[in-house]
């Protein structure tokens, strides 16, 4: 058995890490956070040139025809580097949704442009303040047009198009592709908790929309499960970075005549970070296996990976600040960039409570949880 990534996949991971280190993506995160730009176009272009946006897209649609496992290792490195780019929206969500669909026209039109980075996509799903249930969708599609409002859409003011969930009549939820430069689209950029990643409210008023599916709730659930594994890898990457920062700082910081890393209060704190990280990583590997095999276990595996990775990144990022003492809570130190990103990733695609509930629901359904 080989319950691990292949050598080629690990090599790819290393290459992505090298690029993000060389480009100092953490510094770039700060630049976006403090500046006016909505994302780092230069870094985005480098990721595109490396072919990362084309990863899962088959060659016939202009991609490089790799799989989700490659995307998992990329996600981990983007998380480690808290990269300020719209990768999760465009690749984990928009690209995957189109790949899942059977609409050949949309695939032919959009996948090559997504692969080449010519366009950026996103998934517009949230309404009001919570992640919607099937009955909570009020955006409505009728005769090729949609009307209504989606809130806090990740990269909503960056993306060229959005996949929008909307009622399609007869109590069904459909999925629609909307050009965000079309008439009747109003985009309001938001001031956010983690300004290194842009979010916007989007209102649609009789906006032209292409239908991916008129009965898409199950497709949406699946898309969320697929992306949850990728988000979880991103969270594990961020958690590991935060843990290492805490450890490195504690080794170099002296108090009471010794490195604070020699105090058990600090050692045990970092050991706790390591424990939550290892549990999350192992669950992520299982999620990766389920994702890449399109296994029936995906709903359980994805929720498990997502819940434990969310927990790990929160714990590692908050205790990293604590380990740094007062300096950890300054604007100048990078700790808060990871703390913000941890919170952001916990909210995108649904919060911890929702995923815990999804996990138990899927265990109740499968009836053989262990």
């Amino acid at each position, binding site marked *: *058995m*080989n*319950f*691990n*990534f*292949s050598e080629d996949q690990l090599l790819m991971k290393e290459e992505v890490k090298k690029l993000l280190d060389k480009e100092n993506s953490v510094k770039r995160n700060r630049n976006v956070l403090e500046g006016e730009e909505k994302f780092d176009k230069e870094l985005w272009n480098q990721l595109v040139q490396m072919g990362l946006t084309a990863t899962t897209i088959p060659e016939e649609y202009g991609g490089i025809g790799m799989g989700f*496992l490659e995307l998992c290792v990329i996600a981990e490195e983007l998380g480690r580097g808290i990269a300020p780019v719209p990768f999760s929206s465009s690749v984990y969500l928009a690209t995957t949704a189109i790949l899942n669909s059977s609409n050949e026209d949309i695939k032919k039109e959009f996948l090559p442009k997504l692969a080449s980075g010519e366009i950026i996509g996103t998934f517009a799903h949230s309404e009001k303040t919570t992640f919607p249930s099937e009955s909570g969708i009020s955006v409505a599609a009728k005769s090729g047009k949609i009307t209504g409002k989606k809130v806090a859409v990740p990269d909503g003011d960056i993306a060229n198009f959005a996949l929008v969930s909307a009622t399609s009549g007869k109590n069904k939820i459909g999925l629609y592709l909307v050009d965000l430069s079309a008439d009747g689209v109003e985009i309001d950029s938001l001031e956010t908790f983690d300004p290194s990643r842009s979010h916007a409210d989007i209102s649609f008023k009789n906006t032209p929309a292409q239908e991916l599916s008129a009965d898409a709730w199950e497709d949406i659930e699946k898309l969320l499960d697929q992306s949850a594994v990728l988000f979880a890898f991103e969270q594990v990457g961020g958690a590991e970075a935060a843990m290492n920062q805490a*450890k490195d700082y*504690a*080794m170099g910081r002296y108090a009471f005549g*010794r*490195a604070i*890393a*020699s105090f*058990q209060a*600090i*050692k*045990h704190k*970092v*050991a*706790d970070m*390591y*424990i939550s990280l*290892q*549990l*999350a990583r*192992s*669950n992520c*590997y*299982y999620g*990766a*296996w389920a994702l*890449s095999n399109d296994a029936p276990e995906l709903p359980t595996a994805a*929720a*498990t990976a997502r*819940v*434990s990775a969310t*927990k790990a990144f929160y714990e590692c990022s908050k205790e990293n600040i604590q380990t740094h003492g007062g300096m950890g809570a300054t604007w100048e130190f990078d700790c808060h960039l990871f703390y913000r990103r941890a919170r952001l990733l916990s909210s995108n695609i649904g919060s911890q*409570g929702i*995923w*815990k*509930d999804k*996990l*138990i629901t899927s*265990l*109740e359904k499968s009836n053989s*949880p*262990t």
Partner: protein
Amino acid sequence: MDFNDTKDEAKFRDEVSSWLSANADKKEHAKDIYRPAEMSGEGESGESSALKDAKAWQAKKYDAGWACLHWPKDYGGRDATPMERVIWGQEESKFKVPGGFFEIGQGMAGPVLMLYATEEQKKRYLPPMAKGEEIWCQLFSEPGAGSDLAGIKTKAELDGDTWTINGQKVWTSGAHYSDYGIIVTRSDFSAPKHKGLTYFFLDMKSPGVEVRPIKQITGGANFNEVYFTDVKIPDSQRLGEIGDGWKVSLTTLMNERLAVGDASGVDFQEIFELAKDQDFNGDTAISNGAVREKLADWYCEQSGLKYTKMRNISALSQGSTPGPEASITKIVSANKLQDIANYGMDLMDNASIARDEETAIFQGSLLGAPLIRIAGGTDEVLKNIIAEQVLGMPQDIRVDKNVPFNEIPTGSKN
């Protein structure tokens, strides 16, 4: 990324599986485990019947070449690869067979003998250990030396080629049915504490060895105090150099951490089933959001441990050394056990206090968990190990380092 056996692994698994099928009963479900004829499991009779069965099963395995698989053939093993040993374990766990009794000998004493005993001793002691004919115990902890094991005080004095041992050991699992023991003693009280230790093996029937059971909070008595009064050990049974006992002990402790795995008792499955059945505010407990959140947390821990184990097995299968990730297993599983047991009793409300078929496993787990969090390395010691040996953080400052042992301060609780 896959869970598939290689060709060789699949072939080996088939071989194992067919031998087991021919020689043991398959479990019909996860809880269909071996139970000794005398069902109580407590007191003399339950144990002796379980011991008899375990010896018989071990001997059967030994005769067919399935005991201590990874040991050399010369000493009763099979020269198997680590992966073959894992496969054996996976397959054997599907059968209703007795276990226990031999882990300390085969897992801890065996490796030390292999490294430090003479060839003649290895040929004499290892095969009966593999066969389960002779049972071994480990005499390490003392009333004043648990986590700080190097602080032991049991005294060893050499006269000619015979050592005389005086002192007391504690927490010795299975001392009451063991034939032999490995013991670490202090042979030099004026040397710094890690440098005055000497390691032996001894016959537990030697005159002057007295075993007294310790009653635990569960009511059971799996551990003992062992007293040594002028016990004689020939110098030929010394393992390692005089004063080198700490180094030898570390071999044992390393193997102990590998041997102490998942905590047994209630786990996710039990609390999940309970939550589905149990009433809670006029509905089932599992319909309650707070209960669901708790369940999700434990499922994630259980799953995280399961796939951490898989990552390690995968490393073995790929011919590489497993990483240090497994060091989290006991901390996570013991705490999970305690919390699930407590929460299960909470869900059962006041009825949880009465002992019946449903409550017994939760009550037993709640009482058993504290000792699991302590045995084989406390939570705190294990976190130090993760911090120091896995993450490379500095050791604690030791005020007793390089101080002659007899000048180290001791407290009233020693």
